[in-house]
């Protein structure tokens, strides 16, 4: 084992908790401490845009690991604690109150921050981004006000966060408009036919969808409260609540200031190692260097847990590269999207199942190679696709598109 001294983990989210538990599972017996800047201990983020915002869960149900569970594993937890600097020579971090804490190994699991809308009114009252439990609670409170006063909701950004919030708002009976700058929803991650399908899904649930929307400003009343969103063509969408979901930036400032290699995130290898051998990083804050030299940024639960395990192993002097097929999911209305693989660069697609039935899978191809599969209410297809992609097996598009063909028969025995 390469480290015996204290390991500090900056962050208390999914990647941070996973790293801490993987250190214990790997036999590390020294001090492990989570330093979280939120007032809450570790909690699940995925339900924030859905069940939590809908008021279907209480705070205790959102908890990822109870304090006694962390205590049982001798994992320290400091909440409301912000790390302001890393001294790599002295090997200590500085907290916002000036305290310094020494480390033998340091884990950066600092997450990401939603991008602010760089337009007039972008910081007005009633304009929210969604990242934390407190953000989600504030949005839910404002939704309650909108219900009472019959005010509409405007969502800026037709990505996963925006569409999940739109779905939750519609379930509450709110009037919802989604403004998306691109010509289609989820354009960077989904095949065009799935973008169209999502557009129909949301329209079918009563969402007003505006594609190619060029926003000019958020307008406010004399008290600075947002009252609507104006497009460049002059169209005005009144709003009692504006939710902005236009992507995130990796929280790499701390690493950057300490001189670690950063490029749209903290640059790590497949094992979560940064450019400093005593420092690893995991989760949304990272940009992973792939074998071909390109950088991959993923924001997902799986990325956080896999990189957490890799990062813990790296600190313990072991190689545990993250090589599994990336996967992701999104719940909107009664539809579960499950994605496997990375579809960037896809040239053509095959569809298994009937799109109109609401249960189907889209397979992404580049030449003969299967890149990814996106399943709607088709978990079996999704899990099978993960196995195919993990094994590097590409069915022909004809096989993928033939629901009668057993794709499992292509897997190595």
């Amino acid at each position: 084992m390469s480290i015996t001294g204290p390991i500090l983990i900056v962050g208390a989210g999914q990647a941070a908790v996973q790293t801490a538990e993987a250190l214990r599972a790997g036999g590390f017996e020294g001090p492990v401490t989570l330093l979280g800047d939120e007032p809450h201990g570790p909690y699940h983020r995925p339900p924030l845009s859905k069940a939590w915002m809908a008021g279907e869960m209480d705070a205790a149900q959102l908890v990822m690991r109870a304090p006694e569970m962390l205590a049982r594993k001798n994992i320290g937890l400091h909440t409301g604690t912000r790390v302001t600097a890393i001294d790599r020579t002295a090997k200590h971090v500085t907290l916002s109150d000036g305290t310094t804490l020494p480390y033998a190994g340091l884990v950066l699991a600092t997450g990401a921050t939603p991008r602010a809308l760089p337009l007039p009114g972008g910081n007005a009252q009633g304009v929210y981004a969604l990242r934390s439990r407190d953000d989600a609670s504030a949005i839910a409170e404002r939704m309650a006000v909108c219900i009472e006063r019959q005010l509409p909701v405007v969502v800026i950004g037709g990505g996963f966060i925006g569409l999940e919030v739109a779905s939750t708002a519609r379930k509450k009976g709110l009037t919802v408009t989604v403004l998306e700058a691109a010509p289609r929803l989820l354009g960077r991650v989904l095949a065009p036919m799935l973008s169209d399908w999502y557009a129909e899904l949301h329209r079918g649930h009563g969402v007003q969808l505006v594609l190619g929307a060029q926003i000019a400003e958020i307008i406010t009343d004399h008290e600075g409260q947002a009252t609507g969103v104006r497009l460049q063509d002059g169209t005005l969408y009144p709003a009692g609540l504006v939710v902005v979901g236009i992507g995130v930036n990796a929280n790499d400032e701390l690493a950057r200031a300490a001189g670690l290699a950063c490029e749209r995130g903290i640059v790590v290898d497949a094992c979560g190692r940064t450019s400093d051998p005593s420092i690893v990083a995991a989760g949304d804050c990272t940009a992973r260097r792939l074998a071909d030299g390109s950088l991959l940024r993923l924001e997902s639960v799986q990325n956080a847990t896999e990189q957490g395990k890799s990062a813990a192993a790296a600190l313990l002097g072991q190689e545990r590269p993250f090589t599994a097929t990336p996967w992701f999911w999104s719940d909107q209305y009664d539809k579960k999207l499950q994605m496997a693989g990375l579809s960037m660069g896809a040239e053509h697609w095959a569809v298994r199942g009937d799109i109109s039935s609401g249960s189907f899978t889209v397979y992404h191809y580049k030449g003969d190679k299967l890149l990814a599969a996106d399943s709607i209410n088709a978990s079996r297809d999704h899990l099978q696709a993960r196995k195919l992609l993990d094994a590097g097996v590409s069915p022909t598009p004809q096989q993928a598109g033939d629901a009668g063909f057993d794709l499992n028969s292509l897997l190595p025995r």
Partner: protein
Amino acid sequence: MANITYVEANGQSTTVNLPDGWSLMQGATTNGIDGIIGECGGSCACATCHCYVEESRLGDIPPASENELAMLENVADERRPNSRLACQIKASPKLEGLIISLPACQE
């Protein structure tokens, strides 16, 4: 409310009083019971809250959805006829006294 007993793979047994509507996954993770991970937060998307339900009580629990059945095909440990995902089972008075066993591995 229901008292649910979790038996971990090492034999350790813990009984938890769960409010109605709580999932058995939430009951485990918030009460410090190892052996259930619940990576996805209860979205039926990760299959890391696999459990074995007492055979005689299976009838007290609504049957698994298509989605859950598909996820169960991919659990890390042995799948048995009484395999379920703990995130999909909600506490109610009907489940009083239920015992679930946890597999040795979840991933």
